[in-house]
């Protein structure tokens, strides 16, 4: 009997359009949108690259020109300078071709369009120039005999005072977490599949439920079969989603993609179990159940950072325990751990959390759907 119900559950699932739309098409569309939006934002705005700058050299400030040329000849130059006149420079700034204009006439000054970090770095750069000037003046006035040596050491002494401790070999692009959350969203949408189990097995919700209830199959068997069917369908959806993200959109999940798949599948199981549990506690109509589940899972995804990337960090600093029990956050954390952390401690603890959450939901779901008998409807 188990196999019979499982077979029909799977057939039923394949013919449910909602399932295909929300669990397969919608993530593909949203993923493509995310890729368009966040695909190049990290490279363009946060990852260091030479800052384009226009230099208006009215006063023929030769030493400054030398300094700039010196910087530009480095391997990874800090500036990419264009020497030009004022009108052209302003046009370039306006069009966004350069981040700022440095005027070298008698005193260095800077004109910018925005108030960001790149502009601040340009400001620091021209300040650095005047700092050196001041040091030279001070050196000549206090220790004229050593002045030459001090000034020389200022320009030659380029030793890095700061040693970098690498934290991770993974993909540091923070926008990748939108894709982690997208997978978490698909997993949480599994609750729609989960709630169908209750709708199909509860006599007051659907004609199918009424028919199922008067069949002689024990409820435990029919529900287990439905649950298995839902798990299988959700697994397929999760596999499609991850494959699409990893191979079509080419999202960098770090170097352990083979572990991303099982985590996503486990996430899908959490989602289905969650839907099954909520479906069996609330005695409301099927539409209301779906609406409740959708809003709860959207709120969970919001808290995990689907809409605002730093939401999880905000929650971590205010109510840290919530991130450990919010299923969406746990699922997306899994992918984050795989990407960033070298060791598996935190990843495994997340997997265990997911397993425990789904086990709790399934057990509670079975307990609450027990002994719901109907003499008449």
């Amino acid at each position, binding site marked *: 009997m188990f196999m019979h119900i499982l077979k029909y559950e799977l057939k039923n699932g394949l013919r449910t*359009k*909602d399932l295909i739309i929300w669990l397969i098409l*919608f993530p593909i*569309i949203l993923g493509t*949108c995310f890729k*368009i*939006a966040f*695909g*190049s*934002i990290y490279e*363009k*705005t*946060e*990852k*260091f690259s030479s800052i384009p700058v226009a230099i208006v050299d009215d006063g023929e400030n030769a030493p400054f020109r030398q300094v700039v040329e010196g910087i530009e000849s480095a391997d990874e130059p*800090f500036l990419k300078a264009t020497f030009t006149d004022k009108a052209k420079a302003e046009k370039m*700034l*306006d069009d966004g071709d350069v981040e700022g204009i440095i005027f070298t006439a008698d005193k*260095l*000054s800077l*004109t*910018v*369009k925005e108030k960001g*970090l790149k*502009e*601040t*770095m340009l400001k*620091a750069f021209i*300040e650095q120039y005047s*700092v050196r000037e001041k*040091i030279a003046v*001070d*050196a000549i006035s*206090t*220790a004229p005999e050593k002045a030459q*040596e*001090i000034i020389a*050491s200022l320009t030659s*002494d380029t*030793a*890095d*005072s*700061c*040693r*970098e*401790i690498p*934290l*991770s070999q993974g993909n540091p*692009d*923070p926008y990748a*977490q939108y894709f982690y959350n997208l997978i978490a969203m698909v997993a949480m949408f599994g609750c729609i599949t989960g709630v169908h189990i209750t709708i199909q097995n509860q006599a007051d919700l659907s004609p199918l439920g009424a028919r199922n209830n008067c069949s002689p199959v024990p409820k435990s068997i029919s529900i287990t079969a439905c649950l298995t069917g839902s798990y299988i369908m959700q697994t397929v959806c999760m596999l499609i989603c991850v494959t699409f993200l990893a191979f079509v959109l080419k999202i960098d999940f770090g170097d352990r993609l083979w572990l991303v798949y099982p985590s996503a599948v486990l996430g899908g199981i959490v989602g289905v179990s969650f839907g099954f549990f909520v479906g069996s506690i609330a005695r409301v109509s099927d539409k209301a159940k779906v609406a409740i589940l959708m809003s709860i899972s959207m709120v969970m995804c919001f808290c995990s950072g689907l809409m605002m990337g*730093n939401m*999880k*960090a905000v929650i*971590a*600093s205010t109510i840290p325990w919530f991130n450990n029990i919010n299923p969406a956050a746990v699922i997306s954390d899994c992918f*984050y751990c795989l990407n*960033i*952390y070298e060791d598996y401690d*935190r990843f495994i603890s997340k997997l265990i959390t997911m397993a425990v959450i789904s086990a709790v939901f399934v057990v509670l779901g079975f307990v609450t759907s027990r002994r719901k008998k109907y003499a008449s409807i």
Partner: protein
Amino acid sequence: MQVFKAMFKVMRSRLPSAMIYIVCFVVISAIIANASTNDNKFEAKRLDICIFDEDDTPESHALAELIKKNNDIVEIEDDKDTVTDALYYRRIDYALIINKGYADKIRAGESADFFSSYHLDESFSVVYMGQFLDEYVATVKAYLNMGKSFDEAAVSAEEALSQNAEVNMLSRIDKGGNSHFSVDFAGYFQYMPYILISIIISVVSLVLVTMNRKDIRFRTNCSCLKESKYTAQLFIGSFVFVFIIWLVFMIFGAILNREMYTGRAWLAVLNSFIFAMVVGTMAVLVASFEPKDNILNLITQVLGLGMSFFCGIFIPVDVLSDGVLSVARFLPAYWYVKANNMIADITPYSLDEVVECYLIQIGFAAAMVIITLLVRKVKYSGAAISTAVKKKAVSQ
């Protein structure tokens, strides 16, 4: 006006979901509007930095104080995982460790290994702080070389490093000044297309599909109501709904802006009106394919999210890749955003180009109307109906 009235009765059932969109949008806009600043003076960007002072000497404190002057210090736990999380989620921009023995080394005039930093990626903040630290060390050492004591050197270095260069903002950019349409207020208009698309398509299309359902349509067709009058009422009904939604947004906009629209802001108002009409025609077109409820939801999401991401509604146009932008040109929202950016002075303003954007949007609306008429003609023409009847006869 029976058809008109019936339309609004159906619309009422969709009102709750439309209200959710409106309320979310207005609340988020209100929060953004409150947080904005209107001045046009350059301020250096303050980084969020956490410092782990392993040296804990007066020398290291002096450095920490100097960093604190231009940046915000964030206290977090000294634990590798916590620091990684904070860096990844951008709670901090830089994690600095002042190594043990810093004071002794700098006094001895050594040249490396003063600091360590937790490093996740080569971002601008990392380069900026690296340069700052190098500069600080070089300056202090220069003053020590002049024969000053460390305390004097630190004071002189701080003095030298706190020079302020003159920074001007590009004069064309006018933040809430003469144009009467500030960059911040432009944000309200920038996000509006997403909400307009979501509400108008989901409501208007649904109503039109419902009115066009077979039994209802057959009943209307055999009434004494003229076909042209029926279509006109449907059209007026859709127009009135679109107009009301648009008006609601304009009223909220004026409230958030704390003053009536003046000057250039009217151009933005006109822009949004044209766009609302474009979306209206789009909704009619979608409805003429008679999609089922769940398909309609999907179409709404595709159009809303798709246009928002492709055309620069959710993220600024300049971070989109060129390939995306060349596709976006074929979508009306691209021209809406382009006009809006010009009106807000984000890109150079020119009235002619703004009008050009208006005309292109109107062109999209006209195209949509023509396609709708074509679709309807093919669908409801005698030939189409007779094939449908034949098919049914064959299948029976």
